[in-house]
């Protein structure tokens, strides 16, 4: 694979399934009812269609700043978040659209946020990198590489403090593992047995830098050994494998308050952000090879066809509906108003937003 020392890709004629044949038999997958499997599939398709629609909007200059697409990685967020119970929490980095949809955020509010509209999930104040939904146990959406990892550890700390049997999943990229704050968080989690799973989504590159050019040592997850933490790697193109692996560690976290590092191999098809060049550090062939052999939607579709869960008609219907949903979200975003300059100083302090409950006095804002 690209991220390893050799840049050549092992050619496979078929969609990759061999690496993960057993995972479909794991109880967490075997026990899924047909409609639940279809929902997992639908979620991945919805994310992809949403992001493709957002890319069109970006190219039409409806969206500012960066747009970090998750296309190619959908099985990771959908697989992990599909395992969430009521006391499980999620936090991630700036490539956050997939996780937001995986926890159930509304695509209208997500698209409107990209458009910078007041109807956006953060009222147009966060943008693409900063989606939040505390009511869905989703804590962002963070723009500083690795900066969210101590926060995720804090979510786990709070769960344990309150005696709740939940776990936090703190997602990061393969580049983030080299941030000091990540290692401080690893140590705290291991030292205090906090119920957090550090999920490294290894898509092979941090911007244009491959793993071999950025990370010393044999593997990213293996660094957990230094802290005496459990770790695993996982083939992230197969949602069954993602679920089987994560289920194990989530249970250990919830039941025994054990942290872990899980490195999930995945791949992004688009540039780091959509405006970034994409051929300076990898070849078109490499991208095409992943698309052809390891696309998470194709991999799962194939399996569900083989299982007799999906038919061509259902596949078609799901796709049509996902496209329609994305279009509807774009229409909603387009039609929504922008925030006004009066909104700029709202949502800065809890106290200024709740003046009737304010205890402090004096000026909170300056000019």
């Amino acid at each position: 694979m690209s991220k390893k020392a050799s840049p050549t890709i092992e050619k496979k004629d078929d969609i990759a399934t061999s690496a993960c044949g057993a995972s479909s038999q794991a109880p967490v997958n075997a026990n899924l009812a047909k409609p639940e499997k279809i929902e997992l599939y639908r979620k991945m398709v919805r994310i992809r269609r949403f992001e493709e629609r957002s890319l069109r909007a970006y190219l039409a200059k409806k969206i500012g700043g960066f747009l970090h697409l998750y296309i190619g990685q959908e099985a990771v967020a959908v697989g992990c978040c599909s395992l969430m119970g009521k006391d499980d929490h999620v936090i991630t980095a700036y490539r956050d659209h997939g996780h937001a949809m995986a926890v159930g955020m509304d695509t209208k509010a997500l698209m409107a946020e990209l458009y910078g509209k007041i109807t956006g999930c953060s009222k147009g104040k966060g943008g693409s990198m900063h989606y939040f939904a505390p009511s869905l146990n989703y804590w962002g959406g963070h723009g500083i590489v690795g900066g969210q990892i101590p926060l995720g550890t804090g979510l786990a700390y709070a769960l344990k403090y309150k005696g709740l049997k939940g776990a936090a999943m703190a997602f990061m990229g393969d580049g983030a593992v080299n941030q000091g704050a990540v290692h401080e968080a690893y140590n705290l989690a291991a030292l205090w047995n906090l119920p957090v799973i550090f999920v490294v989504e290894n898509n092979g590159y941090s911007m244009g830098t491959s793993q071999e050019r950025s990370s010393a040592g044999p593997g990213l997850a293996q660094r957990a050994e230094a802290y005496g933490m459990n770790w695993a790697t996982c083939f992230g193109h197969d949602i069954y494998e993602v679920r089987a692996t994560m289920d194990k560690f989530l249970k250990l976290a919830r039941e025994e308050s054990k942290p872990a590092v899980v490195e999930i191999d995945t791949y992004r098809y688009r540039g780091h952000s959509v405006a970034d060049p994409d051929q300076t550090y990898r070849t078109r062939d490499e991208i095409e090879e992943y698309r052809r052999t390891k696309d998470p939607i194709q991999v799962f579709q194939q399996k569900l066809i083989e299982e007799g869960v999906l038919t061509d008609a259902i596949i078609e219907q799901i796709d049509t509906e996902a496209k329609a949903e994305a279009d509807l979200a774009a229409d909603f975003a387009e039609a929504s108003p922008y925030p006004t300059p009066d909104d700029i100083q709202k949502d800065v302090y809890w106290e200024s937003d709740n003046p009737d409950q304010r205890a402090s006095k004096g000026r909170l804002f300056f000019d």
Partner: protein
Amino acid sequence: MAVLTYREAIRAALSEELTHDENVVLLGEEVANFHGAYKVSEGLLEKFGPKRIVDTPISEAGFVGMGVGASMLGIRPVMELMFWSFYSVAFDQILNNAANVRYMSGGLINCPIVIRGPANGGTNVGATHSHTPENVLANHPGIKVVVPATARDAKGLLKSAIRDNDPVMFLENTILYGEKGEVPDTEELIPLGVADVKRTGTDLTIVTYGRSVLHSLVAADILEKEHDVSVEIVDLRTIRPLDFDTVLASVKKTHRVLIVEEQKPFASVGSQLAYMIQREAFDELDGPIHRLATIDAPAIYSPPVETEQLPNPQRILKAALAAVA
């Protein structure tokens, strides 16, 4: 009223708030078994146990960030920095996470965290351990900044800070830890954002905060006795929110202003105040606004010279005389 040291007053505030709310927890380096690098938390481990009083590894970014994350889920962590000087390694967590997360979430999240510890020079520990970042912190909308000068203020303000739903940076002072002062026997919550006139006068307003309040009080006595200058001292107590009304009222009374701060002068709290005073009380001023800050260089080690680098009664006296000349 009981007479407590500043240290004991802070400890009392912690103890009361730990009792008041089970979600309050004290975390930091050496706060539990060691009783705090400056003994602020002495006895708290014995009283509240290891779940509430927690020793952390030396990982400011990690544990401050962890506290911010926990506060998003309703814990009220009080994080002790052994010195505020170490905020630099946790700065990303403070400004990008504590200060920004409410805003970026469109108001869905709040972080009721307190980060506290000493921030001062004057103890001959050199440039790495003598930072006074109140201006840097206050530059970030979303966080609040408190700098108490007396035992009573330290206690009443810390209690309010812990109950506050926004992130509060609480800057103490190692030299003040041993200073004694009267503290009411009954519970007192001093609201953030209320300045305190520590001395009334008619000829000159000194606007100040933190340890410089004590120096200013000494200077004011000399000015009164030896120079017949009557000084009013406004102790801001809180930098953000800022009680500018009290500053204005004093300026309107004395018409002359000296700002004293243990801060580097460039883009300091005093710069902001000077701008605001000229903007809102220009016609009240009988002369230019004067300012006395730390001499603009990294903190010098040399003990006798460090005293001269910082505001001290003699430097304040000189600056005050210039301001009323």
